[in-house]
């Protein structure tokens, strides 16, 4: 399968949107484009399985290597392993749901859909890149559309949030830049340097060099995935963004960071990953607990979900920091699960907000009686978030905890226990928010006139719920998809240990 299709499809759709007239054409074209992406992502999964079943054991499939800037050894090198396929699937789900929930986006609709689709170009390109220059290129492609989406169509203190997000993400990518260049100049491939992920992974980079540049890369990517204490863009950015942009931000964009931490920082600098593991775990544990408690204090539904994202993304970093096969697999599963769940959550919040014009928990109430479908969606997202068995959240978090416990160090065990305990707090805030806003008497008489979800909203929510339940009930397919990829990462990490 030609992986470039994943970049070309959204790009073509985005260009086509520019030539459309009126909301109807724009959204139809966008939906067609998003469906095509969705189908090609499913198709990718299908051919990937077929290749693996046929016994193809190479690390990356559908490898394609085109020399881009020959003098600098920069290649457009793409390929996928199970981890990338999982992330691509996640992206495809969120993109199509995002387009569907923006169905009635009146103001500047052409620009809105263009930027959404352009953002997805960045995400797909990022997940298929095997050259760290290309990867960095796509990472940065996704920054400016977010700024514009929040700043133009957002609500509340949108300009502030947009600027904060853009600058913090830019800071992240600047750190990544330093890390990448440091790596590049310390690679030695017959006297030349290389940006190629596969080539770098095969050579051993000096431990001192790794220890120097690992923090740059890890913190840089970490900022994207709300690494404590660089998480402050998350609540503001998410709460100011329009619904679809929140879904993209939490569902896809934060995963770019986690993927980078794993694929670039940990995979290419395994010695340093061991060296810095205690720090990563400390920060991740703080993020998990702090995020959970901060969520308890929030009154705005979007802030609740944004802070809980900080907490949930902490699990991703915890899994990566623990450096066991299971914990890393769990981290990837958590990325997929959280992406779907949080997109669903934001979609539900957006649907409620567009009807009631408030996101404050105390002003809502009794919504289950008037808009049962949306309320149910909200509850499902909440239950997934608090880790109810049967939904993806349980599977993913469970895997992370199992993997973390495998690490025998007593401080690591303590961190695991503390992180586990945060689930109780999660249950408190989720149930409280759901109870106050959905149950009880209808808080406002005007709410009685509200209409329930339209077909597009039902479809968007349905797709995301299918994803969540598919992982929750039958986690083994995702597990098997991811495992070969994480095994390669573990080999790398294991090699680092044995070298010591």
């Amino acid at each position, binding site marked *: 399968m030609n992986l470039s299709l994943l970049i070309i499809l959204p790009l073509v759709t985005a260009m086509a949107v520019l030539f459309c007239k009126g909301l109807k054409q724009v959204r139809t074209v966008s939906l067609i484009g998003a469906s095509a992406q969705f189908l090609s992502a499913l198709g990718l999964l299908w051919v990937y399985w077929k290749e693996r079943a046929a016994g193809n054991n190479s690390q990356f499939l559908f490898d394609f290597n085109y020399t881009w800037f020959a*003098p*600098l050894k920069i290649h457009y090198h793409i390929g996928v392993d199970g981890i990338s396929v999982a992330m691509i699937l996640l992206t495809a789900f969120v993109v199509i749901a995002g387009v569907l929930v923006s169905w009635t986006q009146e103001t500047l609709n052409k620009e809105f859909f263009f930027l959404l689709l352009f953002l997805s170009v960045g995400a797909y390109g990022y997940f298929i890149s095997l050259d760290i*220059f290309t990867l960095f290129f796509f990472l*940065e492609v996704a920054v400016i559309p977010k*700024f514009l989406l929040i700043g*133009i169509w957002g609500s509340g203190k949108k300009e502030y949030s947009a600027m904060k997000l853009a600058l913090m993400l830019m800071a992240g990518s600047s*750190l990544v830049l*330093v890390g990448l*260049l440091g790596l590049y100049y310390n690679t030695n491939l017959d006297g030349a340097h290389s940006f190629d992920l596969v080539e770098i992974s095969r050579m051993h980079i000096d431990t001192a060099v790794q220890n120097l540049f690992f923090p740059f890369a890890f913190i840089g990517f970490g900022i994207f995935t709300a690494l404590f204490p660089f998480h402050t863009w998350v609540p503001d950015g998410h709460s100011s963004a329009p619904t679809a942009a929140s879904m993209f931000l939490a569902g896809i964009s934060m995963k770019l960071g986690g993927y980078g931490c794993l694929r670039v920082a940990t995979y290419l600098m395994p010695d340093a990953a061991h060296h810095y593991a205690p720090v990563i775990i400390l920060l991740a544990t703080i993020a998990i607990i702090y995020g959970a408690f901060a969520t308890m204090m929030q009154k705005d539904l979007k802030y609740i979900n944004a802070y809980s994202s900080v907490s949930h993304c902490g699990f991703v970093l915890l899994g990566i920091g623990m450096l066991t096969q299971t914990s890393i697999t769990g981290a990837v599963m958590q990325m997929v699960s959280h992406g779907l769940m949080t997109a669903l959550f934001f979609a539900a919040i957006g649907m409620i907000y567009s009807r009631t014009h408030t996101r404050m928990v105390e002003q809502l109430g009794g919504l289950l009686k008037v808009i049962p479908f949306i309320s149910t969606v909200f509850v499902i997202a909440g239950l997934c978030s608090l880790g109810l068995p049967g939904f993806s959240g349980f599977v993913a978090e469970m895997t992370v905890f199992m993997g973390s416990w495998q690490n025998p160090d007593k401080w690591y065990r303590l961190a695991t226990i503390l992180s586990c305990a945060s689930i109780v707090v999660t249950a408190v805030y989720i149930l409280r928010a759901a109870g106050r806003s959905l149950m009880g008497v209808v808080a406002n008489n005007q709410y009685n006139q509200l209409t329930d979800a339209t077909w597009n909203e039902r479809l968007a929510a349905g797709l995301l719920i299918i994803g969540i339940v598919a992982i929750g009930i039958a986690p083994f397919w995702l597990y098997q998809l991811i495992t070969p990829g994480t095994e390669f990462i573990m080999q790398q990490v294991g090699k680092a240990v044995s070298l010591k």
Partner: protein
Amino acid sequence: MGLDFLILMKQEWAVIAILFILLFIKVGSKEWNNENILNLVNVLLLANFVAGLFGNRDGILFNEMFKTNQLIVTEKNILSLGTYIIALQSYSWLKNHKHVLEFYMLLLSTLLGMFYMISAGNLLMFYLGLELSSIPLAALANFDLEKRKSSEAAFKFIISSAFSSGLLLFGISLVYGLTGTLTFSDLSQHLNGSPLQIFAFILLIAGFSFKISAVPFHLWTADVYEGSPVTVTSYFSVISKAAVLFVLVTVLYTVFKPLAITWYNILYVLSVLTMVIGNLFAIRQRNLKRFLAFSSIAQVGFILIGITGSSHAGSASVVYFVLIYTFSNLGAFGVISLVSAITGKEHIEDYKGFYKSNPFLSWVLAISLFSLAGIPPTAGFFGKFFLIMAGAGQGNYLLIIIAAINMIVSLYYYLKVVKAIFMDANEHPIEKLRIPPSPRLAFYICIAGILLTGLMSYVYEYIFSLSTGF
């Protein structure tokens, strides 16, 4: 020898020919109206640019006074292209101006000066070219004849330019006294790093720094940029800077190679200062011309990082970045020039709500600013990445970290303008502007340049293949 001087100096002859055509029109009896002149000039400049692309040969003339090779030809073509874009953009402003012919005669004289400067193989020739390129510029800065600020700008420019020329001459005379030669190819054998030589070198670098407005020699920049007509400002910030940068690379990489460690340290300090000061001042500007003045100072800081790379990739990345910078800065200046010519508004606040009334111009300005900020997929990303990458080749990661921090700061102020355009509400936005065909063509060229020069890697590969490194 024979007709060599005709062929090798082809690009210079072309500019001289255009100058003469304009002169004949001026002295002729027939009255031309402005629009015809402008269209004629645009056609001539396009022809000049296209002619520069073909049939170029390497060679040396007049005892190494004048030398040319493919890289020099490419550099001259970049300048020709920039001048063509500027000529297209100045249409709205010059349409009602009384002295169009004089404007272009002065402009082309400076271009001719820059050509000679780039081709110089001798410090004397270089100095002649430099003076030819800077004295008419002062007259150009004064071209808003009714505005006092414009003459003030011209005056400031001529004084600071004379001062920097003085420094350069002092440096050149010391070099001559110490080595007994001014020819580039002989000079490097005589350089051994004695204190007096380093002193002479510092004077030369100071002279160069004035021209490229590197901190702490930047003080004239903002005032001159603000006072001059926008077209002239864009010429200042792109073309005249680019020419000096090209020469700087050649001089440092070939002539002053023996003093490499000295100039690495000097450039290191200069580039850090230039980036930091340029960025910090840019944040506070409210006038867009001043804003771009400081942002272009900061850009020079990034270019200096590329020069410190002192490698094959270093010189290639500088030329490549200048090409991209030409497109990006001219795109931004083009919009400002058009708005300023029609409405007279130049402040960031005036641009609030600009997107509602002028979506096309807004996108042009935004894309240009993204490119200046180094955001992919615009070419600016590649340009900046390669500059920083070349600099990182020296293993000085502190410089790279400082550059990375500056990229964040610069993003902040570029986004501030984008925010004003797209997000801020305004009750009296700039009205919908009609874009005449020639500025429109200029915008298309700039946007195409910004989007394609980066992604199409063979532009870089071509420049790389021409560059000579250490």
